[in-house]
């Protein structure tokens, strides 16, 4: 990011020595790179035992009999526990939300009871002195299964002839939503061209660097449960552990130190983690469980896997008249707790057409049960699909009427002057910058030159493509996301800042660090609002005993919501400290400020008293302060967005790539992103978030796919066969910014964590089609775009 990207004329943030907008190094960098992180995998407790699970080899099977005798005899084995036994300690859960009307699901147990509903579901838990012993014993557990028919194809899940996975629910429909805005049929009838196609998005997963892990420690004497947990949402998990183990929340402490990447994977309730906690309660000793890669592939939530039939209408001059979609997705046998598995489809309905000024939009989404691993929210929930569908349609329509893909966007993107406004789906936009972002992108990529180069290469038989994807992104959610649906998921977050006895600042925040740099952002905000150098701020996260109540990390909220709470807390502490200083100095608090760790005259900047001295007097010589004056050197503030249900951000991406038309291989050449996340607190961290997100989006577009056979067996659940995107195949990713702060908060920051993932797949798909279109290829609307898909489009392979 270069200077022109920085916001001009800072507002409330315009403090001396501000860290807002500066790429400071994250404070935890040296610790992590020196191998001194504290991941759950590193936690070792006295008397700690290790859990391993016997998992169902079948997608759907009745558990007829379990024989654990041989396993129990293995020296070092502590317990072998079935689902029925564990159910005495841990109650089952049902993943529904009341605001997703009609959403239904069945009770899910920590370890399967009577029936396994997907390949990989835990059927028996084995606890032993070491993980290796637990795995040895697990091999000796005999489970007799009666295989049941597996429902695997979402397309036929609702057919009369298809067995119902949970007979009590009546059918395999989890959730359905319809929407009809404007006059779609009339608009389509009056269009000059209508494009209709079907998009297929492959099921994939978020491969975290550190797998899921938990160390649960039930202390019978203290009647307290401590869970060291690699999670995004410690307070949410505190509630859930308490609820299902029959405890009060104050009896449960969730500690989350370092987490090796989450991407949305670690914000859900996992049966094997619940089992680990229940086992600790049952055995009255610490129990550790770390998922291995093979387990991760069959139990970490999967995502996407949508089939979207879609239509767009346009007029000859390029005006978009209507969008219509019909989405179908299979989400496994259970709606995932507590966020549910209806959200992705719901988001798709919300987001399709979102960047465009088009009032006519009809949508249907159906979510069905099937016997595969569960699906739920993964980075950019629904956005990559909604964006690829919308932008795929827009470019297909532009091609059909023969106008440039940039031109069609200039004609239809919501005007930058039109805000505040709403979308056809009912989304409310405070202020977006589609046109400014597009202009900036075009300049960054030197679009006209690129088109000339493309034509010159084409003449030499080299087929390159340029594709775009404009997007909107849901960030900083208010209670409208989950709270109103009855989930105890906090949308508000708190920060507590305290002056230590030497004048440094300790900040406890409810948001969490997953490796994305929240600690750095919170430290920057506090250092700026309070007025100390960054190295005088220590940030503490991830401990329900010690941090303010909050939601944690999800939906790109940590900087925007946690950051604002920290900003306000820093300001409050500044006022408190200035009150002390004013009483010491016999000055007016208003005439003072805190800069560079000293109390100064606000006008001149002349130092009056150091913070260390203020702290010394307040803590050790309070007797010298005026009678009746009490120093308060700790302040807490909370924040939740109130004016807008979500802080929508926007942006646009472009992909430039080359297709080898002999092999169907795609080589990525360049990728550009212009993104508007409001105030950019740390440009480097934002750009890293965008780049990492783009890479995951590229994974979806070209590489990643959880392949199941018709019996519900995952065929490629390992790191050799499941292709995560790797550095050698990635293009340079250039990131630019337009800055439109949200007025809902003082810092004005919106989220940036998911924008890359939201836009990249659509941009890559459009670029491939742009490369192939002059060759008469069929349009590609399938992801991942493998060589086979390209060859098929070219008619070179069946």
């Amino acid at each position, binding site marked *: 990011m270069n200077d022109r990207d920085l916001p001009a004329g800072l507002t409330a943030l315009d403090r001396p020595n501000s860290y807002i907008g500066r790429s400071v190094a994250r404070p935890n960098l040296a610790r992590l790179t020196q191998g001194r992180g504290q991941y759950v995998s590193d936690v070792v407790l006295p008397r700690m035992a290790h859990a391993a699970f016997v998992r169902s080899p079948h997608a759907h099977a009745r558990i007829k009999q379990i024989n654990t005798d041989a396993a129990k005899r293995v020296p070092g084995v502590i317990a072998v526990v079935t689902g029925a036994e564990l159910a005495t300690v841990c109650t089952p859960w049902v993943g529904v939300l009341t605001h997703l009307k009609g959403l239904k699901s069945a009770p899910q147990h920590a370890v399967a009871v009577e029936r396994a509903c997907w390949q990989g579901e835990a059927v028996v838990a084995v606890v032993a002195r070491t993980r*290796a012993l637990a*795995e040895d014993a697990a091999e000796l557990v005999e489970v007799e299964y009666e295989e049941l028919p597996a429902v695997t194809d979402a397309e036929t899940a609702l057919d009369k002839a298809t067995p119902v996975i949970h007979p009590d629910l009546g059918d395999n429909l989890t959730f359905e939503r319809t929407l009809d805005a404007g006059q779609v049929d009339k608009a389509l009838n009056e269009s000059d061209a209508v494009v209709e196609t079907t998009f297929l998005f492959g099921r994939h997963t978020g491969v975290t660097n550190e797998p899921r892990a938990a160390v649960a420690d039930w202390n019978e004497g203290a009647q307290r449960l401590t869970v060291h947990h690699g999670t995004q949402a410690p307070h949410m998990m505190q509630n859930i552990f308490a609820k299902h183990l029959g405890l009060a929340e104050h009896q449960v402490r969730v500690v989350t130190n370092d987490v090796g990447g989450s991407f949305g994977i670690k914000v859900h309730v996992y049966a094997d983690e619940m089992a680990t906690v229940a086992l600790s309660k049952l055995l009255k000793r610490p129990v550790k469980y770390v998922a291995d890669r093979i387990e991760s592939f069959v139990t970490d939530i999967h995502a996407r896997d949508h089939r979207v039939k879609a239509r767009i209408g346009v007029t000859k001059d390029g005006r978009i008249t209507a969008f219509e979609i019909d989405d179908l997705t299979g989400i496994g046998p259970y709606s995932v707790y507590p966020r549910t598995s209806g959200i992705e489809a719901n988001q798709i309905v919300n987001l399709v057409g979102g960047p465009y000024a088009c009032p006519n939009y009809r949508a249907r989404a159906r979510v069905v049960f099937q016997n595969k691993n569960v699906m739920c929210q993964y980075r950019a929930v629904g956005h990559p699909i909604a964006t690829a569908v919308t932008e795929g349609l827009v470019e297909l329509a532009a091609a059909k009427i023969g106008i440039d893909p940039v031109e069609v966007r200039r004609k239809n993107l919501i005007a930058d002057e039109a805000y505040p406004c709403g979308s056809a789906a009912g989304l409310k936009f405070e202020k977006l910058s589609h046109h400014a972002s597009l202009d900036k992108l075009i300049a960054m990529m030197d679009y006209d030159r690129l088109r000339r180069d493309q034509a010159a290469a084409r003449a030499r038989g080299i087929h390159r493509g340029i594709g775009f994807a404009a997007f909107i992104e849901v960030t900083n959610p208010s209670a409208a996301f989950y709270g109103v649906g009855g989930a105890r998921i906090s949308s508000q977050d708190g920060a507590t800042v305290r002056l230590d006895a030497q004048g440094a600042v300790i900040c406890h925040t409810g948001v969490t660090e997953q490796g994305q740099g929240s600690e750095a952002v919170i430290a920057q905000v506090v250092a700026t609002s309070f007025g100390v150098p960054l190295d005088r701020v220590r940030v503490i996260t991830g401990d329900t005993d010690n941090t303010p109540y909050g939601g944690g990390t999800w939906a790109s909220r940590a900087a925007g919501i946690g950051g604002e709470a920290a900003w306000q807390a820093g300001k409050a502490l500044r006022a408190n400290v200035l009150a002390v200083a004013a009483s010491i100095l016999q000055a007016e608090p208003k005439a003072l400020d805190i800069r560079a760790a000293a109390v100064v005259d606000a006008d001149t900047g002349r130092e009056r008293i150091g913070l260390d001295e203020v702290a010394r007097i307040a803590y050790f010589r309070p007797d010298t302060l005026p009678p009746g004056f009490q120093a308060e050197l700790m302040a807490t503030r909370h924040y939740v967005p109130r004016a807008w249900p979500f802080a929508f951000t926007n942006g646009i991406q472009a992909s430039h790539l080359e297709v080898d038309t002999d*092999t169907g291989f795609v080589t990525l050449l360049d990728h550009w992103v212009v993104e508007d996340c409001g105030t950019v607190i740390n440009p480097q961290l934002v750009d890293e978030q965008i780049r990492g997100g783009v890479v995951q989006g590229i994974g979806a577009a070209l590489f990643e796919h959880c392949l199941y056979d018709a019996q519900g067996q995952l*065929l490629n659940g390992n790191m*050799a066969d499941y*292709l995560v995107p790797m550095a050698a195949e990635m293009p340079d990713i250039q990131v630019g910014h337009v800055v439109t702060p949200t007025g809902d908060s003082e810092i004005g920051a919106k989220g940036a964590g998911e924008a890359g993932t939201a836009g990249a797949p659509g941009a890559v798909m459009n670029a491939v089609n742009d490369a192939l279109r002059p060759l008469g290829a069929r349009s590609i609307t399938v992801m991942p775009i493998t060589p086979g898909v390209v060859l098929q489009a070219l008619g070179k392979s069946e």
Partner: protein
Amino acid sequence: MKPAPFDYARARSVEHAVELLGREGARVLAGGQSLIATLNMRLSHPSLLVDINEVTGLDRIARRNGHIEIGALVRHVQAERSAEIAQTAPLVARALPHIGHPAIRNRGTIGGSIAFADPAAELPACLLALDGEVEIAGPAGKRTVKADDFFQGLFETALGPRDVLIAIRLPAATHDTRVGFAELARRHGDYAMVGLAAAARANGTKLTDVRLVFFGVGSTPVRARDAEAALAAGDLEAGVKALARNLDPPDDVQATGAVKKHLAGVLLRRVARQLTEAPQ
């Protein structure tokens, strides 16, 4: 992902290794880059690992009587940096950088690659394309097996449970040797979706002794014999057509058999071009 319990023994010599392998369920441990993964995933349960890494004399690259001999314990990285191999086995030199990543090539061995015989691996195909042979020590002493007879089925070779592969032997390249190599992998360092290792002899503008070995297309490296004949006859198009008869790749998670067949044809065109180029 912890291996089932196993015993471990370090062999002092090839003879000692053969002796240790007398135990039921014993396996040789070389670089461990394939074996350890299968142990951790509990795909194999050996009773004893016979570690041959300390056996002296198995890590040599030597030229003898028009052949180059590469010891079983020569690491991929050592082979990659060998001037001898670059000169006398240019096909192997071209193939080596395609094997995994540097960390894997630092540990993985030539013998391990041949003995493991992954059907998508580069070196077995090179061995077959170069008409090389495998030197084996077993309970009955030493024997030599031609590459054409060595690869017998999916992960199945002429090696018996008590055999140690001690070296491979390749004819040294001469001025008229022509080689070609190409593979397609989705990501750098992956096993190939389809690959082709080829060798021939140049005779004026014509090619003789053409050997085309495809990998990633079946349960072993596969010679495309009709395509070889077509290339020797100077008819590339007939060669590409012949692949339909010579290859029958099964579907796998990366591609369907039909796609692999198509890609094999593309590779043949590319490699045929290389075969006509004289070495620099």
